[in-house]
């Protein structure tokens, strides 16, 4: 995992996205224990307070939870993970379609193009 950050946005926001991705992709599986803040911060070379802020936000969203004595865990709710995954996918699709519409593509052309592209990827 490459922990690089864009220069123009707050780091905690980028950390939230990064950790979300790690959860959605299964790198941090549902119900698994997350590394300690210290270890994660040191791996990512970021400030532990900043990482703490990102984790608190993920906690507020329900993707992770804290067990008082034993640390922080990924939610066991796999449906929730799926749901978040879907939301992120939709976000990305909207970005792409918006651009393609700006470029003058019709819905049918877009679909055909995406379909043929996916077939080629195999």
């Amino acid at each position, binding site marked *: 995992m490459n922990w690089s*950050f864009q*220069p*123009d*946005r*707050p*780091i*905690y926001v980028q950390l939230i996205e990064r950790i979300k991705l790690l959860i959605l992709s299964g790198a941090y599986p549902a119900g698994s224990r997350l590394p300690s803040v*210290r*270890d994660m*911060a*040191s*791996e990512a*070379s*970021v*400030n*532990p*307070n*900043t990482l703490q802020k990102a984790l608190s936000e993920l906690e507020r969203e329900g993707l992770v939870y804290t067990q008082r004595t034993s640390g922080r865990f990924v939610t066991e709710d796999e449906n929730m993970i799926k749901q978040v995954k879907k939301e992120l996918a939709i976000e990305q699709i909207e970005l792409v379609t918006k651009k393609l519409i700006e470029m003058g593509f019709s819905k049918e052309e877009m679909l055909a193009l995406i379909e043929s592209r996916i077939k080629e990827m195999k």
Partner: protein
Amino acid sequence: MMAILQCSNLEKTFGYKKALSGVNLSFEKGRIVGLLGPNGSGKSTFIKLCNGLITPTNGTIIIDGKAPGIETKAIVSYLPEQTYLNDWMKVSDIFNFFDDFYADFDIARAREMLSSLGIGEKERLKTLSKGTKEKVQLILVMARQAKLYLLDEPIGGVDPAARDYILSTIIKNYNQDATVVISTHLISDIERVLDDVVFLKNGEVVLLSTVDDIREGKGKSVDALFREVFKC
């Protein structure tokens, strides 16, 4: 929250030259603070004042409720810009020195850090490369359980890979209630580990902010902002 370091109206002049003037700063516990400014902006002067190596011309510094002196030295871990260790000494000699000197020096942790770097305890300093020497010095400083770490240019003379090692060592080893002050002009390497930044220009504080506020409010990195403020 109580500040670990507080200075008010701090001023230092060397002859006719004002190195620092009208500096008011307060650093809270548990923060990593970047002291940023070009060469000659007063960064090292500030850190030396905090260590009691030089005395203020005007104004005050209070560290954990006390003026810099013997008591504050016990809780402040200082990495000077230049090495002060004797070249003929072995790493183990220096470890023992620190162990004798500082009640909060954790020699077991220092050994652990040393071995993770593959440096032998029996090696003499003069046989080590410049970068390795700097790492040994950082180990000495970070193996103390201090309340305040004052690191003057910890990443100045080393290659990018060593910088990463140094930064992650700082993150891994400072204790959560301690405050770390890092002076540097290499901002892009360091801004992701900072909570707060102080910009020093010609001995005066021209900006005091959190990194997130700069990125969120101005939509640019601290590095980019620095280049703007200090444009030649």
